């Protein structure tokens, strides 16, 4: 699928003390593309996300989003440009009701621009969003304290929080980790739906099976370096990847 370039990462690099977390990584992401990022633990996936979203300042390289270099910009600026992310360890406001969690992104200037948030309306919007995520509006779930919700719900709440920004690029950092099979099964279609609606998505995942079902392209990191990039089939057939994932054989469905 040929679309205009949305995000262009050029030999990005970052090290913490001695550890080279990300080394000279480059890739191009087209509009409407669904990119999966995989790699063994500690291969720098999360750091890559932090670099793109501005939570960590890169030592070298550029991140070009819609033609402008956003490397080293503040996280809120980047988010304001439409790059929204979820966290591997969900960051939520546990002492707020679930739906109130969405008020924070909804009251950002970006959303104001896109949606014109008049007072009082936001609560309804929040509840709608949660309804889409599977928090039935008429149950008590959306109004419960976030802290009292089970882990699966929190993950989806985090996703809802990310979506509340009306992002152009959604980055999912191991969304499925710790989710029950059934929850994954119910969440995956949501994400596919977003994609079909034209949202560009980067998905970092350990559950290769689910990942490969939805992504167009996969991109493998190992020790902070890109070792493969391409369609799931070709990627998994390359030697390097086989070595990296020693012993894991994946059937591609």
């Amino acid at each position, binding site marked *: 699928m040929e679309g205009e370039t949305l995000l262009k990462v050029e030999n990005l690099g970052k090290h913490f003390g001695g550890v080279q977390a990300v080394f000279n990584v480059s890739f191009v992401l087209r509009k409407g593309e669904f990119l999966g990022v995989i790699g063994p633990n500690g291969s720098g996936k999360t750091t890559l996300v932090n670099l793109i979203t501005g*939570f960590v300042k890169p030592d070298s390289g550029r991140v070009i989003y819609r033609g402008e270099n956003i490397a080293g910009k503040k996280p809120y600026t980047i988010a304001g440009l439409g790059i929204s992310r979820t966290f591997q360890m969900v960051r939520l406001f546990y002492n707020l009701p679930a739906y109130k969690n969405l*008020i924070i992104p909804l009251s950002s200037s970006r959303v104001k621009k896109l949606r014109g948030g008049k007072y009082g309306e936001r609560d309804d919007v929040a509840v709608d969003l949660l309804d889409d995520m599977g928090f039935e509006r008429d149950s008590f779930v959306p109004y419960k304290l976030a802290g009292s919700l089970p882990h699966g719900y929190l993950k989806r709440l985090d996703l809802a929080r990310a979506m509340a920004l009306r992002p152009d690029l959604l980055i999912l950092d191991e969304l499925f980790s710790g989710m029950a099979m059934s929850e994954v099964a119910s969440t995956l279609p949501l994400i596919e739906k977003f994609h079909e609606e034209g949202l560009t998505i980067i998905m970092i995942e350990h559950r290769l099976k689910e990942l490969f079902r939805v992504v167009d392209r996969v991109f493998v990191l190992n020790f902070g370096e890109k070792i493969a990039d391409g369609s799931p089939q070709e990627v998994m057939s390359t030697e390097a990847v086989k070595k990296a994932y020693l012993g894991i054989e994946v059937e591609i469905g």
Partner: protein
Amino acid sequence: MAEVGARYRKKRLDRGIKARADTIFAIASYKEILYLLLPRALPVITLLVLPLLLRGYWGKVLVYSCIVGLLALSWDFLASCGLFSLGQSLFFGIGAYVAGTLSYYFHWSPVLTLPIAFLGGGLISAVLLSPVLRLRGVYFAMVTLMMPLLFMKMIETTGLLGGSHGLSALVPFPNDWVARYLAVGAFIIVLFIFRRVINEDYGLVLKAIRDDDRAVMSAAINIYWRKTQALFVSGAVGAFAGAFMTHHYQFVGMTVFALDYSILPLAASALGGPGTFAGPALGSMILVPLSETLRALGGLRIALYCFILILSVIALPEGIFHYIERKYHQFEKLVRIG
């Protein structure tokens, strides 16, 4: 009751008036309306009546309580977005000097100086402290602690703004009633505006910044700008308090930056329960009259605040307001065991 206690036990229940969220109520009767209004109406009425009852010195004390109350409120507003100040006297002093200068050199009346001090004070505070906002942890507290003390020394040594002699014989309030009701009024208004704002989306964001600034940033919200706004609001309120005292005593001197104006609000907030505004307000209404009754002790009073402060931080972190609130919303009944 002993034999009752044998076969019954106490059971605490929340009054079932709240539906779903905190903001949504299911009101069934006048009784419940009263139940909701009483805790809000009662203090207001009391505060409005007190100036008429109190004679002589205790009228002054009421005014002073309100001033400290304002400082405590401004402290709590800052704290609500994670900015922990040890120097409310900075805001107090800035306001006092803005008003004092205008009144001394241009003989402007409070009608002008108070609003100017309110806005100007907020502005100055925000500009002065905005660099610190980028830092985490104790930095903000440290800087806010030193700033006023350094300002005090600076005015003393350089002789600027009247130096150690201060500016005196400033324009007073027309009469005592104006002063009293101005203080009480400002106090009530600020209290209710703050309580309202903090439950709005705006306040929600502020509290979110306190809880987890990264998550807020990932929601495309410029936390530094929000913090600066909070700084402005808090500074403005503190400055108003200072300006008021300036006119009330027709004098402003370097000691408006003194530690007392930082400790009192802090102690009041810790005692009443930070994060609720009602708590700090309540706290100052207790602490100031208390300290006046103990004036004979001289310097010991300050020490006493400190003990109260320590005690409430260690023993009752939630503050007395939360406690009262909880008690108000719960009722106990005896239920038969088994």
